[in-house]
């Protein structure tokens, strides 16, 4: 089965938070957010720029969270999606320290939860974040397709030893 991931177009993201809230609603995440929105304004007037980022779980090829979990609560599906089994999770937070991106979230019950790539949705449907994005900055799909799409706009895969399943267009 082909591995799936994200294509994120920084140029299209306006940091509007719609993705975070759509995710929270579809997945009934309660008080935690499975997408983290970052807005950074840089420069000195009048040469100003902004980077907006909306960070889900990157469902890495070599997921550090999975490798670090002492109780085997985190697994990776054949389509690449990394999932945590909350019944097995003991809330030790090793995964939080292992993840280079700060993805694992801990709610009131102390168990880890995070973006599931809308695991319950069939592959041909958009993810909840993807379908509401007003500028269509988020695209999910098979890694080979995303690589082709990213290359068209000079995008590339996010680097690092974890090998995140995410391409970025600047």
């Amino acid at each position, binding site marked *: 089965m082909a591995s799936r991931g994200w294509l994120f177009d920084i140029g*299209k993201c306006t940091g509007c938070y719609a993705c975070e*809230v*759509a995710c929270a609603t579809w997945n009934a995440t309660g008080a935690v957010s499975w997408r983290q929105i970052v807005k950074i304004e840089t420069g000195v*007037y009048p040469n100003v720029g902004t980077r907006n980022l909306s960070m889900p779980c990157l469902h890495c090829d070599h997921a550090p969270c999975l490798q670090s979990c002492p109780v085997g609560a985190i697994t990776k599906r054949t389509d690449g999606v990394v999932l945590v089994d909350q019944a097995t999770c003991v809330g030790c937070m090793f995964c939080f320290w292992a993840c280079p991106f700060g993805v694992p979230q801990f709610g009131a019950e102390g168990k880890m939860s995070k973006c599931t790539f809308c695991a319950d949705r069939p592959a041909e449907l958009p993810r909840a974040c993807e*379908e509401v994005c007003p*500028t269509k900055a988020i695209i999910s799909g098979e890694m080979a397709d995303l690589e082709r799409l990213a290359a068209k706009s000079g995008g590339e895969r996010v680097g690092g030893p974890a090998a995140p399943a995410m391409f970025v267009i600047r």
Partner: protein
Amino acid sequence: MKETAGTTETLERLRDAEMTPGICYVCPWTCPTEVFTRRGEVVYVRGNTRASTKGSRCVKGEASHVLAKDDNRLKHPMRRIGPNRFERISWDEAFTQIARKLTDIKAKYGPEAVAYLWHVDPNSVFAQLFLTECYGTPNYYGHTSACEQDRRLAALTVLGHVFPVHDYENAKFVMLLGINMLGANQNLYESRGLLAAVSNGARLIVVDPAFTATAEKANEWIPIAPGTDGALLFAMAHVIVQERLYDEPFCRQWTHGFDEFCRHVIARGYTPEWAASITGVAANTIRRLAREFASARPAIIETFKGLGNYANGLDASRLVYILDALTGQIDGPGNLILKDWAPLQPPLTIPDERKTKPARPPLHVAMGYPLAPDLPTQLLPKAILEGTPYPVKGLFFQCTNPVMSEPNTALYRKAVQALELSVAIDTYFSETAAECEFVLPEASFYERAEIRQSLAMPPEAIICVPALPPYHEARPVYEIVRGLAEKMGYGDLFRWNSWEEWGRRIIGGLPTDLETMKKTGFWSGELKYHKYRQSGFSTPTGKIELMSEAFAKNGYNALPEYRERSVIPDADYPFQLINTKFEMHCNLTTQNNPILMKIRSENWAELNASDAARLGIKDGDRIEVASPQAAVTIRAKVRPGIRPGVVCVRHGHGFGHWQGIAKGRGTHINPILGTNVNPISGGIGYNECKVRVRKV
């Protein structure tokens, strides 16, 4: 991009839910939505995937499902028995007492003494029919004077169309002045298209004193001096005229006043050099932008509210549409689109023999604003307190909160208190409702039905099907009006067994049926370009009016002119105030939503980093912002992305009356704003304000 249409059934199955099409009313763009409910609970929402917004939804809409259960919503009709004291009454009591007052006011002062104001207008057509045709007042108005009054009048005057929309996706050059459609004024019909154009190499120029969310995506940000955009636009026109960059065949065939306009800009000397000293934009930049715009095909120049926030905004807004016209960039692919409306019909008709004709002209005409596209609301207190131009004794406020949103807060509060009849129809207990005699709970957009126009490019009608049962005693406006009509002898005309009865009448002229629309959420017609080739323009001359016959007839300048704004900073008040909203809050309706308040709980005033450093202000400090009118304390946001000498306040917070999480959060800044009304359009000059700033 994944195909989203046809995915509804899968999502329904996954959540054991049922989808009903809806319309979002958190902001006035009224995007079509899909609401997924399971046993009376909203489990998911997204944009309508098949209608023009293609599934898109903004954060406000996504978070809005909390409205459905918000304990702080209005639940029962109430009547005021003292300051901050209300008693619960029944609907029957409310209708009886309001009807009695309406009858008394009509007998004493005439029906024109009653006015109906809406901000967002779900189903207010029922109120319009009842009040203007049965009761006999001509005073049915919206909120436009606090919004895009100047732009609206400019578009009407120049192009004969009240609300151009935009084919951004196909444009090669887009210049936006005083409009932040990716941020504060999120337009989901157009945001995807704008960024698709930029991805495809289109040039995007954003002119704004602040580095807005739209400016972030632009190829060029022009940090213009506030309130001087008219000078920039006139200078661009000067270049286009002098260098003959206009589309002459188009202008000769389709515009009125072409020669006069060309002579006028040259004679006035509206050169780039002249504009440079006013705007702070270099003359050769202005020249380059004019040439770029004129040679790029297709192209769009557009504005919304920003220019109209100043006293000189009307003519500046006219220039926006005049420039689009000079280069023939009208109603074609990649242009602004003069959309056709869906052929919807009224939900019911009042027979002639049951109508009451008003004896007095509408308020805006009597006030001396015959061309105002909506009531100059800043002049309403005078009508209430002094009876000028004629007495206003009764007001309905449907989902509108002028005690918070108008300048001169103290005066507005006093005026509402002086009314003989005041009725608030709302989902929340607003500041205005707190001053009203009757407060009626309105059903939210999760619990009511509606059919209306959408703001997509083709003619499109969208439908809202009630997704949830009624919330306590809250009722939709059509039921509220029905109750009033019944008490006043018009009940037989406002009769239906289900909303579907009038729903079918509304869509009677569409080639579809209600059952289909209840499933899909919309009907869409064909997008036609260049419609003017068949039907001309809806102006007095049938052409685009570079020179306005309507203005001339009313004693105004037929040709647009540049004038300075009214309030200029000085030694005592060295900063120009400008204002905008947050992306995640809208007007005054979202500040009790815990999701949105978690993202952004408090408003702030933005200051340039070098101004802040000079004043010893750091990001997050409390500062005092003082105008000659008043002073407020607010949080400072220090950033590089704002022109020095400018303070930008994000408005919409600072509530006293609300229970829940909105109470006391943030700062209400309107007390520092004075009254400033455009003499032709009646629009409010919110940015006509000079301030000084100090750390507290």
